[in-house]
Structures are given as C-alpha cells and as structure tokens.
C-alpha cells in the first residue's frame, strides 16, 4: 500500500492559510465570547490525550483491527512540538504469502516519538502533521483452531514476532470544544519491518523445527480521541 503522506501534507497545506494561527490573526477564540477563557494568542503549551480507532490492512497478511492508546505533546514553539505516545494495536493475521506467519492474532504495543507541526486555521481548529519513530513490542498467538487441530495430532506450535523499530507519520485536526478540552481526529501510518520465528514441536518425539521470516507491520490508523490541553497564555494572563 502506498504512503498517504504527500497527499495528506498537500491537503493540510491547502487548508492552512498563512494567517491562520490565532496569535497572528489577532482573532480571539470564539469560545472566549461564550464566557469560557480561551487559549491565549500563543495557543496551547501541550496536551495529554486518549484515542481509539481502527487500523486498516497495510501489510501482507495483516487484517484490519482496533487501536487504542494515548499520547502527550509539548510545544516548545508556537508551531512546533514533540509528542510521545503509546498505543495498542490488535490485528487478525491470515497466513502470509511469505509464510512468515500463520493465521492468528497480533497484538502490538507501539511507542512513538514524533515531531508535531501545527497549522491553526481558527481559534478552535488546528490541523497538524506529525512524524517520527515507532517501537513495536509484539505478541503473536496462533489461531486457536490451528493450534487445537495440531494438538490433536500431537504437535505444538509457537510463533513469535520480534520487537522492531519503525516509523510513524500522519496528520490530523484538533477541535477545541472547551477551554481545556479538544477533540481530534487523525490519520497515521505506522509501520516497521521485523523478523518472525515459528516453531513446530512433535510432542511425542520432541522433534522440533524452527523457521524464521520477515514481516512488515505497516498499517494506516484512523484515530479519534480527546485531549486535555494546557493553554500557553494562562501564566501570562495571571501576571497581568
């Protein structure tokens, strides 16, 4: 599957006018007029959020599955920040054509570290792009139907997917729904290439055979979630 990154960047660039950032346009957030103090011109200092979503089939043998997790970001400049996140991705796996994995389920705990660039278009709406590294810790379980069939024939099967360092990139939109809360939606491509190991053991004779392979763990994730935001201007407002 091709990377959606260039297309996504183009869309976000078109959506983000040069004067979009609230601090530059001089506009106050609409929420301020509603009685709730909004972010200052400097925007938010950071956020902590949670999300859920789906990962679509990205690599050979990997089916669609659920993702959920959280992340936190710190913006050391108005537009630029860093983000750390952790999420879990659970996918069904069908037997891969490369024979690296049999049918089963793959649970990955994915830790990401990324750079975030944001392009606010209004006081409430802030598109952003993000990209960085991803570390996959994987656990694979052979489908119970397969393992039980094999057990009936006195075979025991075990398959492993090695941990791997990969990448993540994507983009999304923050929508401020309250002074400290935002909802967001994003698309993120998360991937890595890793090694696999499969072992079949004859439980009677003890004869076992092992085979190694390689497997891509790429997937396009569609996420929605909420964030607790830390407004950048709060400290200045207190002083004044």
């Amino acid at each position, binding site marked *: 599957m091709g990377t959606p990154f260039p297309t996504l960047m183009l869309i976000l660039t078109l959506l983000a006018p040069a004067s979009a950032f609230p601090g530059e346009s001089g506009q106050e957030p609409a929420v301020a007029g509603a009685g709730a103090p909004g972010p200052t011109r400097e925007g938010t200092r950071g956020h902590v959020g949670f999300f859920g979503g789906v990962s679509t089939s990205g690599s050979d043998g990997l089916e669609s599955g659920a993702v959920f997790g959280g992340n936190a970001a710190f913006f050391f400049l108005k537009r630029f920040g860093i983000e750390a996140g952790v999420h879990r991705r659970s996918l069904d796996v069908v037997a891969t054509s490369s*024979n690296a994995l049999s049918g089963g389920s793959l649970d990955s705990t994915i830790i990401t570290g990324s750079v975030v660039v944001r392009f606010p278009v209004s006081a409430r709406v802030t598109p952003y792009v993000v990209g960085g590294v991803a570390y996959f810790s994987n656990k694979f379980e052979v489908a119970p139907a397969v393992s039980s*069939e*094999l057990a*009936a*024939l*006195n075979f025991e099967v075990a398959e492993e997917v090695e941990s791997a360092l990969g990448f993540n990139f994507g983009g999304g939109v923050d929508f401020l729904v309250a002074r400290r809360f935002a909802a967001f939606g994003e698309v993120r491509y998360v991937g890595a290439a890793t090694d696999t190991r499969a072992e*079949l053991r004859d439980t*009677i004779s003890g004869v076992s*055979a092992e085979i190694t392979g390689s497997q891509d763990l790429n997937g396009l994730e569609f996420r929605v979630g909420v964030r607790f935001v830390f407004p950048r201007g709060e400290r200045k407002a207190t002083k004044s």
Partner: protein
Amino acid sequence: MKAFRKTPLALLAGCMALQVGVSQPAPASPGVTLEEGPLPPLASARRGSPHLDSRLVQLAEIERREGREAASRFAAANAIRLDAAQRVRVLIHPATSPSTPAEPAIAARVAAFGGEVRGRIGELIEAGVAIEAVEWLSGPREIAWIEPAPLPVSMQVTSQGVAVTQASKLLQGDTSYRPSAEPIRVGVLDGGFQGHERLLGGELPASVTTRSFHPMGIGGGGVVHGTACAEIVHDMAPDAQLYLTNFGSLAEHGQAVDWLVSQQVDVISYSIGWYNSGPGDGRGMVNDQVRRATSAGIEWVGSAGNEAQTHWEAAFSDTNGNGWHNYTSADEGNSVSLRAGDLFIVFLNWDDWFQSSQDYDLYIFDQSNRLMAFSESFQDGSQPPTEAAGFIAPTSGNYYVAIRRYSASRNVKLEAFFVGSAQGRAQYVVPAGSLAIPADTDGAIAVGATYWRDDAGEPFSSQGPTSDGRTKPDLSAPDGVDTATYSALGRPFYGTSASAPHVAGAIALLKARFGIYSMDQVVEILYGRAIDRGPAGKDNQYGEGRLDLVGQ
C-alpha cells in the same frame, strides 16, 4: 529331518509336521550316512569352468542336449533371465589388470558372439548373450567370472482374507502447518506397472510420470506389483506426484535409480529384494545403487523382505567328516515339501565376500536321493561366495537341500533362502537375519509387515539383524490391505511389498503437510510415533514399531 538316512515313515512324519506349519527340526534318529545311501556318486572333478557360474554351464549343456525349450524351463527354475530373443542376461566380472583395461576387450568379445552390453554396474558388465555363446565367452583372460545377472524378486506374499485400507486422521482433518510449497515427489521403483493407465484419476493421480528401463516396457511383461504399490502411496499421500519406473535387471535397476535422482524425487518406495547380492552388511552392488539415491538426499523406503520362514543360516558343520553339512548331528538334509509343478530355488551364500576362496556347493535331492538340481560354481579366489540351484518338482513329495564343502580352509557361516511357490515349508529355518537385500543398507528405511487387522507381526516378515549387527527393520506397516489391482485378482495385497509404500506415503504426507520439517525429521517423527510392538524399543522384528502418523 535327515535327507539321506530317513526311513519312508520318518520322511512322511517330517512332511506332515511341515504341512501344519511346524518349522522345528524333527527328532534326530539314527540312520545311514550319506555315503551309504543310494545317492549317485558325485564327480570329484568339476564340470564347467572356473570362470563360469555352474548354472550357466548347465544351461548351455541342457540347450545343447535337450534343446531350447528345456533350456528355457531350466532358466525359469534357476532364476536365470532369458530375453525375447532367448539371450541370457549375464554379469561379467572383468579380471583385475593394472595395465590393460579389460572392458573394451570384453565388450568386443560380447559383440563378436552376437551379444549386447546392456549396462555397467561399477566394474561389472551386464550383457545379453546367446546361450550357446556363454561358454565361448568365458575363455579369455580378461574375464574373471560370469554369472547370471541377479533377478529382482517382488516382495509380495499371496495369502487370504479381505482387508480395508486405513485412513488417517491427517487426511480426514486436512490439517497442515507450513505446508510444502511444492508437491512431494515419490518415486516407485518396481518390476512393472501393468494396468496403471486405467487407474489414473482414480486409484492413482490424474497423471503420473513414467519411465521404463525394462525391455518389455512399463508393464514389465504383465507385472502389476508396482501398480499396487503406487496405489498405496497415492492412498497415503493423495497430493504427491508419482514417478513410476521399472527395470528387469541390475543394470536397468541402476539406470532407474539414476533417473529418479535426476527427477529430484523426495522419496523412493521400493518393494523389491535381491538374493546373493551381498554379505548383508550394507555392502554390495544393489546397496551401492541405493546409496546413490540416499546420498542425493532421497529417503529410500524398502521392504524388509518376506523371508523369515524361508531363510536359514548356520556355520558349516561336518560332525561326521563326510564333507556334507550337518543341520543337526544326525541330519544332512534340509527337507522341503513340494507339490508337483512347484518351482523351488535355493540361493546359498557364505561369509567370504566378495572374492571367495572358500568353495562350497549346493545340491537338491528327492526323497529317493536322486539329484534334482545342483550348483558347483568355483570359488578359487576370484568368484563370489554364492551358489544357486532350482527346479520344478516333477512329483509331490519331500526334497532335500544339501551343502557340501568342496575346498575350504575354514567353516564359513552359510546362509540360504528358499524361494518359489513352496515358500514356508523348509524344515530348518532361521528367521533372524532374513533381510532381503538391500534392506540391510545403512541410511535406508527397511519396513516389516504387520497384519492391518490385528497389528500382529506377519510370520513371514524378514527380521534383522544385519550381518554386521545393526537392528532392522526400522519400522513396520500394515499389509493385507485392499488395492484395486489385487482386488481385481480376488485377493488383498500381502507382504512387506504392501508395507513399504505405506511408509513412503506417510513420509510424503507428513512432509507435504508440515513442510517446516526436513525429511530426516519427518522420519524421526515417524519413528517416535510408531506403536511399539514386540520387545520394548526397537527390535529386529518390528523395528521402532508399527507405523502410526499420530501416535498414542
């Protein structure tokens, strides 16, 4: 019982005991010695030539005296192969000469007498020559020894009863794990595949690859044995690709093996055995051909043989000093009960391979001590330690196998196989060490037979050990099963011939379904899963046990 000193009553008693399957020797009784019996005097001087097997000498004499038809009968009774042109297939041992290669001269001599070189087995030359030319051929110094080319013997035992083919859990469940990407190729090497074409797409795969090295084509002149073996392989491993090849002689056998190697088969199913072809310790011409396949990574699965009740071995013992072997202290003949028309062949060899200087001879007498057949080949240092003699019984009754020490410096260990339509009726038999060649080959899998219905070891199934002390067979597998081929003839398929293709098919099936395992691992798994029978652990009757793909 004693061949040369029994009263008629004693003879009758021995015969009856054999008819109910008792193979222990009858009680010894005093009697006349061999010299005192009514035997015709044996010539002190040898007939024939030190370069020519005794059977070939006799064949030439019979054709000269009695004509072609009598010679054909003698050939059939003595495991001598005649082709359609009535040429005899012989194996020529060139004389060892460091300076002059003998092979071109021999080939030229064969051609000069109207013969044809059919192939080479190492230094040996297999040729078809006219019967009358055999004696002329043996003249020059380039030729050390000429013998009849060994004939393969199908490992099938005809019996009674009806059985059904086992179906495995593996096939029913269609279970696999990391199946092999390519279909497993199984070669079936046999004497003939008569009728296989009509089974394609049913009892056999829709298509099979065939190659015949037999002069009579893939049918081998009406031999259905290979077709039945292929059926069993297909029953066990329906997705396997089958390569069927047949042969009629040792040279053709080697060509067929090489062809299977070139086709990159994974497994060879082999339900054939040979006699007098080696010492039984894994050495010999046939064994060498098997090793050509195993060294190419092919799993060779062969029948152990059906000779447990037709095999005898013992150290030569002449307790009364008359030159004849004493089966017991008072018995110099091993009796066999034959019906009129029964074919009976004795293959004798002893432990002085490969160029023997221990000369022993073989004789078969009737109950009136008339000589029925003999083999008096020379062993003066350049011939193999073998004799073979056979005949067709003219009348029903007892016949006696006798072994004479002609010229020897030691008492050798003798081994005899009694072959023909009278199998299982010899008086003295020794099941141990009855493996047919090449079941003794190290690195090849030898398969014994158990009756499918009750898992009992078949009494005829050949037993180990090999002559160098290795435990064989390696596995046992069912026989007495149904095949379309033999069902059409009204009988199940008995013998280790039926057992070996079960194992070959099992290997192909496991490898196909569990491609993650190497072929050697698949074999190890089968050994581990075998249902132990007989003494605990691997033994010389059942090997690791009866084949089972799932285990207990």
